[in-house]
């Protein structure tokens, strides 16, 4: 089990080689830069470089936003996540960067985008006007009468409710006989009426007041619309057609630009990101005159190689290597063997250990797989899972290490699930027993079956709780080991071993009828010794005799927590049984539907396939979460607190391309 040993390096170098040194540090992917706390001068030219990076990244962000929706990426995002990216060297990317003027590209895309937006605003206006015109179809006069009017005549257009329209008409008629009232034809369903009123210019004031009083909303048309309704409508539809043509042309331009440039922009996004990280690391260094000092953490085993590479740059570099001191807070890099490595993901998901402390990865690994297997507990589902993972591993050869590890976690989980499924006789629920055509597998199933959880859940419950006790006691043992290692003997014996004695002793006594008398006697001894130790340990630093006793009793009361912890493992039974029952119900439904005449068997296949896919998904999630929870809540609480910071080295962090660097 392990946390990799780190060294703290102070690297001094001449500013003439700073680019090369930074490049080597980044390429190694093994150095976590320690940010300088001093606010002294920064290495030369770094600020200018950082500004360049930020400018380029601004253009790239804009281009992603503007072109992204027009670009059909040939690499799907899932493929990309699983490592299918074009591979480019840093030199090739630098070449692309030189050939691509991102600023020019961004401004040309921006011009097209602006044109498109203006066009769309105009189109919207045209459509509004077309809508108004369609309402007053049948108005006989040229529309110029509404805008400027003639020498003596003027008009007004507006809408009001149908009831009000009649009122207004009467009011106008009563007021004067030299107005003309036009009501546009409408459906009986329409609640709004569109009206045009023509009146003598001299009476404008009074007519408008009347209109407003009767609740008319006046609608203005742009003065450019001056012909008859039919003519103006035709004009507008011509212009709309023209707009549509222009819009599709602009969109075509954007799509073409996207096709042509997006691959380069994606590569450059990674390129400038890499440079940004590099110069950021330099900016975090200290500089005096012509010397720069960069401090970083590096795994001890990666140091010699790095030293060799950096020293090859020239004579103007110097290493000062030291071990972490008490004041330092080194990051944590986990280092485990191939079997345990996938479980590191779970440790990091919780929180990595503090540097130099115990790594819970390897103690957790076997239990995680066992519990995962018991919760999912179906050989059929395990086969499906393993096949899918196997196909993914075959298809995606360049998968990033973290993704690969996470998938291996499920691969190993599938193996445990398969084994547990065999001994509990679960294969897609009761698939083998449910369908006569599977009968040939029955003898095999029966031969491997040890206990059927549906028929004998009590046995599985016993097993679950027993595993819980083993798991918890193992956690306490690890804690005791850790305390011994740190020479805290009182804590190891009083705080950890005492509880092992007490809990196991009580269980031996409690299991009296099932166990030989020997265990009963031993159990009493262990429980008493454990209780005594717990009692002593809790009150050992207290002088007052009453407080001493009180603290001791309170500590013993803490044993109820162990009861709760142990019972929590009953979920192993519940979730395993859940998979088996849900699987069986799906088979039952399938069998019932298969009885439908003619199409029954087709429906049955759908029900069984779909049902099992669904059941696998929901039970997989449950198995993962609960197997993890038993580690985090019950197991870790005995010996592990996390609180470390994960090692995050300066490296090539890319999203779109795989970058390699050969100097």
């Amino acid at each position, binding site marked *: 089990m392990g946390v990799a040993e780190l060294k703290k390096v102070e690297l001094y170098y001449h500013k003439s080689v700073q680019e090369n040194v930074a490049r080597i540090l980044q390429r190694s992917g093994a150095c976590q830069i320690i940010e300088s706390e001093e606010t002294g001068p920064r290495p030369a030219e770094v600020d200018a470089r950082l500004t360049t990076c930020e400018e380029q990244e601004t253009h790239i962000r804009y281009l992603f936003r503007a072109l992204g929706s027009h670009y059909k990426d040939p690499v799907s995002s899932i493929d990309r996540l699983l490592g299918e990216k074009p591979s480019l060297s840093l030199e090739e990317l630098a070449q692309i960067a030189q050939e691509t003027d991102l600023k020019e590209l961004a401004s040309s895309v921006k011009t097209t985008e602006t044109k498109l937006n203006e066009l769309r605003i105009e189109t919207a206006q045209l459509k509004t006007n077309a809508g108004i015109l369609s309402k007053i179809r049948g108005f006989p006069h040229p529309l110029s009468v509404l805008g400027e009017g003639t020498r003596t005549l003027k008009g007004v257009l507006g809408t009001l409710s149908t009831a009000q329209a009649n009122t207004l008409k009467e009011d106008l008629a009563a007021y004067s006989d030299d107005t003309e009232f036009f009501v546009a034809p409408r459906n009986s369903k329409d609640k709004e009426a569109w009206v045009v009123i023509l009146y003598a210019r001299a009476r404008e004031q009074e007519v408008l007041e009347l209109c407003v009083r009767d609740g008319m909303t006046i609608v203005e048309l742009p003065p450019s619309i001056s012909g008859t309704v039919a003519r103006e409508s035709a004009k507008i539809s011509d212009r709309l057609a023209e707009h549509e043509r222009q819009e599709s042309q602009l969109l075509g331009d954007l799509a073409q630009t996207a096709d042509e440039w997006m691959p380069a922009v994606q590569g450059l996004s990674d390129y400038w990101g890499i440079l940004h990280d590099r110069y950021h690391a330099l900016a975090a260094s200290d500089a005096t005159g012509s010397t720069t000092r960069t401090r970083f953490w590096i795994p001890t085993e990666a140091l010699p190689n790095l030293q060799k590479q950096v020293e090859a740059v020239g004579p103007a570099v110097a290493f000062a290597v030291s071990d972490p001191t008490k004041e330092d807070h080194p990051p944590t890099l986990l280092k485990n063997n191939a079997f345990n490595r996938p479980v590191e993901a779970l440790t990091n*998901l919780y*929180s990595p250990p503090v540097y130099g402390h115990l790594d819970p990865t390897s103690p957790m690994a076997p239990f995680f797989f066992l519990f995962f297997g018991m919760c999912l507990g179906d050989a059929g589902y395990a086969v499906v899972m393993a096949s899918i993972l196997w196909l993914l591993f075959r298809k995606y050869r360049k998968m990033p290490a973290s993704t690969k590890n996470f998938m291996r976690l499920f691969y190993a989980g599938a193996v445990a699930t398969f084994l547990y499924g065999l001994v509990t006789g679960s294969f897609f629920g009761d698939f083998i027993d449910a369908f006569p055509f599977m009968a040939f597998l029955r003898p095999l199933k029966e031969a491997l079956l040890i206990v059927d959880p549906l028929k004998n859940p009590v046995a599985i419950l016993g097993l679950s709780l027993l595993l819980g006790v083993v798991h918890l006691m193992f956690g306490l043992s690890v804690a005791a080991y850790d305390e011994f290692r740190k020479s805290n003997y009182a804590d190891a014996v009083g705080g950890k071993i005492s509880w092992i004695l007490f809990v196991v002793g009580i269980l031996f006594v409690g299991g009296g009828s099932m166990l030989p008398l020997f265990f009963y006697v031993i159990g009493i001894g262990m429980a008493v010794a454990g209780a005594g130790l717990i009692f002593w340990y809790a009150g050992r630093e207290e002088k007052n005799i009453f407080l001493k006793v009180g603290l001791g009793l309170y500590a013993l009361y803490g044993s109820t927590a162990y009861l709760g912890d142990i019972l929590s493992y*009953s979920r192993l039974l*519940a979730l395993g049984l859940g998979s088996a029952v849900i699987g069986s119900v799906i088979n039952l439904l399938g069998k019932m539907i298969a009885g439908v005449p003619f199409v029954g068997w087709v429906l049955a296949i759908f029900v069984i396939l779909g049902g099992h896919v669904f059941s696998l998904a929901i039970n997989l999630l449950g198995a993962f979460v609960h197997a993890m929870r038993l580690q*985090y809540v019950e197991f870790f609480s005995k010996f592990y607190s996390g609180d470390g910071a994960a090692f995050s080295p300066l490296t090539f962090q890319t999203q779109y391309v795989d970058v390699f660097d050969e100097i």
Partner: protein
Amino acid sequence: MELLGLALALLGAALAGGLAGVGSAIGTGIAGESAAGVMSEDPGKFAKCLMLQVLPGTQGFYGFIIVFMVINKLQLYSTPLIISWTQGLMIFAACMPVALACWVSGIFQGKTSAAAIQMISKKPEASGKALILPAIVETYAVLSLVTSMFLLLGIQLG
């Protein structure tokens, strides 16, 4: 009246399946609202949000498992057992732990999931912990399932 026992037993099973389903429906609903809010900002969090949303969905299945066990016990699909009303009441009682605990824990797990979804929207690196908080609530649904299961197994019919 000779079917009263059977009716009581079925009432218990119906409540177990129904109330547990109600709990899960409300729980996944609450979590789903929260997930939709987070995804409107960042659609890339879909997978994480979905995992948290389906967590309160398990209660419905726990209820369903008990329904299945009652059906099996009564041999409902072959020749239903005719049981006395006291036996029916016993089965009814055995169904109650799952019915009640899954109903309520589904709702509260949904609320915790919703809060956890908000948490990963602000701190995506804490998604492991976010997954654990709702799983704590589920403990009691699991316990109620085990309780109901053992009560049912303990009832001797015929």
